[in-house]
């Protein structure tokens, strides 16, 4: 990959966005009624507020590749005959800017599920057409623990990595897709970027600063060593699940804000004109999750609660070369109504390593 590093002045960042949005949809962390989300950027709309200072959007960048709900197919009755109508949304090329290191890593975890056979066509299509521009975290939060998963908030993955330092946005393409976007931008406006390759001292200083902060965070050094498949049964049978799950109210907040949760349900909706089949996120915390004809395999909240963390910390790694299904973004820490979260679970169940 090219190690070319480009910069654009922060005050001109609007031009960059406009240039990207010229021929494709651009998703930016925008403010909506007080909350920050990845929303389509509209160059013509001055009221949109770009919030690059906010670390985590409430919903992760996962939404753009695996939306909360999407149509799959529809059925329509004509007299006594049933037509099957494919009405999956067409995916156009798009770019998402401002993805943080943790979210960027979450795509790897989702890819392992959705892109292995049988390939999830919708997800694959979005992954193929979406360009991910990441942004390093200048101000990590106390809830961050991406470091535990070997993620470097100072050098996020993604098709293009960017940093904000010294009043400049630093831009480095990592993949072919990234290079393509960069080239396209340059072809439209050659003066958009300044080539700062080899003059990246400010950038390196910023990276150092980030790493320094991360080493001071309260969750620095969190260990998940205890969680591996050999301990599966011991962990599963731990009596501690009961007390941990007592606070859980069984909502889906943690799963819906989680960048790596990937469960969905397929449902039919009778519109009166026909039946629309769609899929939507599901949460293993729900009482009707994987409801089957005979009923529900996990009848109590403790089982459902355990399932979620077993999946993240044991089952998924067991099937994926030890990679945890968590990126340490800290969203569940911030959002759980009962303040129960993966860190508390990790420390309670796999206690010794964290004492």
């Amino acid at each position, binding site marked *: 990959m090219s190690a070319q590093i480009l910069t654009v002045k922060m005050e001109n960042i609007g031009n960059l966005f406009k240039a990207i949005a010229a021929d494709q949809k651009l998703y930016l962390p925008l403010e909506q009624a007080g909350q920050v989300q990845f929303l389509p950027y509209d160059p013509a709309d001055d009221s949109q507020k770009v919030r690059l200072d906010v670390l985590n959007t409430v919903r992760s960048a996962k939404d753009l590749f695996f939306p909360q709900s999407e149509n799959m197919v529809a059925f329509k*009755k004509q*007299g*006594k005959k049933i037509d099957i109508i494919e009405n999956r949304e067409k995916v156009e090329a798009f770019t998402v800017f401002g993805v943080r290191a943790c979210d960027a890593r979450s795509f790897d975890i989702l890819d392992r599920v959705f892109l292995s056979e049988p390939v999830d066509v919708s997800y694959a299509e979005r992954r193929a057409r979406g360009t991910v521009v990441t942004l390093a975290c200048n101000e990590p939060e106390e809830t961050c623990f991406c470091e535990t998963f070997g993620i470097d908030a100072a050098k996020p993955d993604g098709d293009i990595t960017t940093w904000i330092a010294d009043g400049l946005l630093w831009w480095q393409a990592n993949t072919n897709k990234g290079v393509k976007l960069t080239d396209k931008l340059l072809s439209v406006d050659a003066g958009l970027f300044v080539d700062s390759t080899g003059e990246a001292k400010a950038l390196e200083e910023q990276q150092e600063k980030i790493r320094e902060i991360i080493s001071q965070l309260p969750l620095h050094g969190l260990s998940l060593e205890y969680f591996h498949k050999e301990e599966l049964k011991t962990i599963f049978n731990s009596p501690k699940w009961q007390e941990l799950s007592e606070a859980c109210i069984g909502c889906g907040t943690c799963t819906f804000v989680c960048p790596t949760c990937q469960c969905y349900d397929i449902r039919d909706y*009778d519109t*009166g*004109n026909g039946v629309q089949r769609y899929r939507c996120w599901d949460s293993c915390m729900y009482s009707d999750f994987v409801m089957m004809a005979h009923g529900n395999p996990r*009848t*109590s909240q403790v089982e459902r609660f355990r399932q979620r963390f077993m999946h993240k910390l044991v089952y998924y790694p067991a099937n994926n070369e030890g990679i945890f299904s968590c990126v340490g973004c800290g969203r569940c820490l911030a959002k759980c109504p009962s303040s129960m979260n993966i860190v508390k679970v990790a420390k309670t169940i796999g206690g010794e390593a964290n004492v």
Partner: protein
Amino acid sequence: MQRIGVFVCWCGTNIAATVDIDTVVEAMKYEPGVVHASDYQYMCSEAGQSKIKQAIKEHNLTGIVVCACSPRMHETTFRKAAKAAGLNQYMVEIANIREHCAWIHKDRKEATEKAVVLARTAVAKLNLNTPLTPGESSVVKRALVIGGGIAGIQSALDIAEAGYEVDIVEKQPTIGGKMAQLDKTFPTLDCAACILTPKMVDAASHENINLYTYSEVDSVGGFVGNFNVKIRKKARSVKADICSGCGICTEKCPSRKAENEFNLGLNKRGAIYIPFAQAIPNVPVIDRDQCIKFKTGKCGLCAKVCPADAIDFSQQDEIVEKQYGAVVLATGFNPIKLDNFDEFGYSQSKDVITSLELERIMNAAGPTGGKLLRPSDNGHPHTMVFVQCVGSRDTTGCGKTYCSKICCMYTAKHAMLIREKYPDVDVHVFYIDVRTPGKNFDEFYRRAAEDYGVNYIKGMVGKVAPTNGKLLVQGSDLIADRQLVIEADMVVLATAIEPDQTAKSLATMLTASIDTNNFFTEAHPKLRPVESPTAGVFLSGVCQGPKDIPETVAQASAAAVKVIGLLSKDKLMCNPCVANSNELLCNGCSNCQHVCPYGAIDYVEKEFRAGGKTSLRRVAQVNEAICQGCGACTVVCPSGAMDLKGFTNQQIMAEVDAICR
């Protein structure tokens, strides 16, 4: 999946003129579940019905939709036809394409389109119908009459005559009620006692009638056909079975301080007493609050003098539990308290009396032996003033908003009787309106005014001031537009009447509704005037609204007929379109119970097994015999556990969907 047949009726040209029948039939063929669609000139005719029956058999239909006139017209007809062909009669839906479509629209295209929508709506509903079977419940062949006045006695006698057992519960020591206190009755002036006491005797001696006097209803459970009633027999302190009714005890009782309720406190009675000579049962009762034995432990004179040894100071209240098929409410009335009407001086002068008190004074068996005497000094009055509408037609909250109905007539009666017996007495009647609808009523009133010279004054009395042994009555004569001051010896107040206060607690026990004035509400004010909205509960007499004796007796007999009709059935068929609680969803929150107008919902603790665990939960259960199917409970149920058979949430939503498609 249903196999539905759709039958479109032309109704001659009534429907066919505006709705294109063929289009409707054709459209219905493609509706889900429809396997057959046809039309006919007159579906309700014999031929039309047999077409339906034939199609049901031929196409093996599970349900039918008839597109015709209003279901209020022929739903029953088509249900019967379906039943005859072996279908469940609740697998029939009607699309009203006549009243709601053909008759109100002129444009043929528009009307046809609407008819198609209405038809497919009925199909959509029918797709979710399930066969319903009316439940059955048994009927206990015994009736309970609450209240032993003329209303209760009449109802009881009529029911007993038809061969059914009847129990009368009366809270006083004797039956007879208010009528027993009256002197003469309008407009015939026959003596109340003369016509009532034989009926009282009849009731007491009737083999099918069982009297519970000095008793009250403690609680009511159950429902139509199967009421479970607890009756409290208050302790009389006299053994009714051995008392001979000789009355020696009442004469010898040394306590003479108690006000005689029967004479409205115009004289005193002993602590052991029989309310009046013709009381039934003729058994005395000890007023424990007044009895010296009960107060101090000494005395017991009555026990000593009793030849039958019937006095029992240790008697306790006794609870009798019995089952009844029907309940007649005949709780009657009382004159209101006059505390809010100080201007009439009722509390200041003994000579200001209520009309009911005058009845006792005029009564030959009353405190004055039937002589008209002024209560204050037993003197002969020379001028009497009657005031009408005392507390009636009052919207200020001091009195009652309604007209008490009987006052105009009894005041005319009183005035006439006084003028007849004592021509020297001047009688003035202040009135707002004189209301005399009723057979021979107006003639009666005119007779009082014209033949007997009663002075009727249009106007009201503003003040009654006791002054120097007289009563200064300041009133208005609106016709002459002047203020009058009449110096009277006695003032008689035509006091408003109100339902007995037991009505309220009984209403709660029976879930029979009462109105703002505490009168029992009828199931329908015009068409079901003697039934309460609660099945199996009937209304007799003034407890339903003010009425005179003939009306009371008429209503009492009408209620009796309704009871007989009910008791003559061995089984009661229940409306199958009733609420139904899904116990798996029920939270036990009681919302449904709060809004049920019939008290049809009970809660039980029930064990449930889920996920290998057993848990005890409080769940609602609907008594199908009581539920009338209004659906109020379904909407307040937060979890949707409560649903209404025949009008389920899913069915109604399917109808909405079909209309909006």
